[in-house]
């Protein structure tokens, strides 16, 4: 592990990509970086530019309008990068899918179909601690990538 990689793992920067959804997961992500659940004490920082980010936090079921934007955000983040799908919408469209399991016409499938996902965090919405646990798993993945 070289110095650059070591520095990246000690302070990964996070970009929060909102792709549809109901804003509940976004509130929990805001809580993660608030003083109560303080993720910044572990060096994890929220940035508002994907070009600076190492980790992408994606929420929501990805509507067709957002699909191209999400792909562009993924391409803008520099390598190595890790994608974390937060919430049951991001994993499998959650309650937005029809009862018989068929896909909804308005969505371009879950995040899994649009961009490759590394870590899944289930919950509706997930607890802030659960998101911190997901970020810890994402760091393990980031250490393996180059």
């Amino acid at each position, binding site marked *: 592990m070289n110095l650059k990689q070591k520095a990246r793992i000690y302070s990964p920067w996070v970009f929060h990509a909102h792709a549809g959804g109901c804003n509940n997961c976004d509130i929990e992500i805001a809580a993660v970086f608030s*003083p*109560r*659940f*303080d993720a910044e*004490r572990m060096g994890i920082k929220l940035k508002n530019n994907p070009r600076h980010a190492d980790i992408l936090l994606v929420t929501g079921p990805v509507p067709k309008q957002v699909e191209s934007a999400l792909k562009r955000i993924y391409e803008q983040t520099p390598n190595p990068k890790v994608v974390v799908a937060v919430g*049951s919408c991001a*994993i*499998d*469209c*959650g*309650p937005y*899918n029809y*009862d*018989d*399991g068929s896909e909804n016409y308005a969505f371009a499938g879950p995040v*899994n179909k649009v961009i490759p996902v*590394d*870590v*899944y*965090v*289930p*919950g*509706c919405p*997930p*607890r802030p*601690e*659960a998101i*911190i*646990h*997901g970020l810890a*798993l994402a760091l393990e*993945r980031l250490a393996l990538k180059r």
Partner: protein
Amino acid sequence: MIKIVNGMVILIKELLRNIKRCVTIDYPAGTWPGKKYSQIVAYGRGMHEFDEEKCVGCGACASMCSSKTIKLMDEEGERTVSIYLGRCLFCGKCQDICPEKALKLTPKYELANIDKEKLYVKNSLNMAKCESCRKFIFTEKQINTVKNKILENLKPETKEKVRPDMEKYLKLCPDCRKILSFKLEIHPRKLY
């Protein structure tokens, strides 16, 4: 001079109080001495857990599930109740509706995983065969509990009449019950 000392005393008192009122909670939570700040409550809704002895496989949870994550899958001789946590809303309806109180939501919340296929909670049960047509009908446990629950609510006089009838028709599937109802020599009203 005295004013400065008094001011310092007040300042130190405020400082000490603020150390006690620490806002940030440790991760994993609950290790911090002031336990009232711990976020994990005993009735918190997290990962599902089956009580394998109590679960009957009736499928009440599957019919009640608000996002249709709970599914019953009948394969040869085995019924599996599978819960996919990726779509679950953790609403707790399945916990409320369960007649045997076998399904419970534990406060375990750390469910993040690298693999999507590991987000399943499963429970498998043996199934019973119909005696005439040799098809799988219900689970073995379900037949016993239905029998016991019906017999509980009856008077002791009628219980003795019903019990031999039940032993005949509970081994058959609903279609065969209709066909063989004349041969079984039981009153059709008793076919539940």
